[in-house]
């Protein structure tokens, strides 16, 4: 049972990819990509979790106390930053696609030229 938590990120990733596969709207697809990417946040935090431990900030606790793994938390921060910028870039592309082609339905964007 103790490994069940590791399966949650896999499930979130599959849900996100399912959303992208069945998407009929590019904005929806970008949001689904964010969902799929959030699986990596959960995976990192699950790996770093430690029972009965607190946040790795020692402003108000003794440096000997148990804390969760700070490395994966720092990686999660990196992950969130990169994810947010990629989302911004993809939404910018979506704006241009909508202006040039008049649609944001991926199925109607088969060819490269209108």
């Amino acid at each position, binding site marked *: 049972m*103790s*490994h*069940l*938590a*590791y*399966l949650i990120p*896999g499930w979130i*990733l*599959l849900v996100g*990819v*399912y959303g992208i*596969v*069945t998407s009929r709207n590019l904005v929806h697809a970008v949001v689904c990509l964010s969902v799929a990417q959030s699986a990596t946040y959960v995976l990192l935090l*699950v*790996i*770093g*979790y*430690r*029972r009965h431990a607190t*946040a*790795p*900030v*020692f*402003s108000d606790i003794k*440096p000997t106390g*148990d*804390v*969760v*793994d*700070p*490395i*994966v*938390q*720092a990686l999660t*921060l*990196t992950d*969130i*930053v*990169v994810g*947010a*910028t*990629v989302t*911004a*870039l993809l*939404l*910018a*592309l979506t*704006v*241009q696609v909508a*202006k040039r082609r008049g649609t944001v339905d991926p*199925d109607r964007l088969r060819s490269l030229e209108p």
Partner: protein
Amino acid sequence: MSPRGRLIVFLLGGAGFAVLFVLGTVHLPDFGGTWHPYGERTVSNAVARHTPNVISSINFDQRAFDTLGEELILMASALAAVVVLRGVRAEQEETAGAHEYGPAEVFDALRITGYLLLPITLVAGVYIVAHGSLSPGGGFQGGIVLGSAIHLVYLAGDYPALARIRPIPVFESGEAVAAGAFVLLALAAAGQVTAMNAAVGAEVGCAVVLVLAKFFEQALLVRTSS
């Protein structure tokens, strides 16, 4: 490919992924266990170097060079978004206020809330950046708060005022200067956590403002010339 065919391909791939993922997790250490060898080493290093917030210590001291890469990804993405959203031929940009739009008709309560929250949010953002080495927070988080804060003016219904308080050239130069400062700090003085937090905070804030400014222009000002 038909939606049905696409779904079948997804189901096959998803099933394969699920099997591999489950097999991959079987031999991982128990969830919530106490075996975190790298974590323990970073904690003792962070405490030895007087950075109580271990996350900041990792990002700006122990892994500062990696954060340089992350920072440049952020800058490249923001730059790319701005380039993609630039005006093109057959489009013309209307200057904000060309129609003499005043502040929009919004409830007074909303307007007052926006203007009241603006200074509070700015101070909170500066606090999150400045205290990043001591308490949860840091340049990335505080930068986002700072960049979002000035858009409270827009939420209060006053786009012309927002356009006045965020002159784009200033933020473009700010972004470049902050990115340059961060590169110098990461290469020459990694471990100056507070200074690096400040550089990152300035850069993230400027990037957020620039990208949002471009989105606003697209939504509010750019028109296809007929």
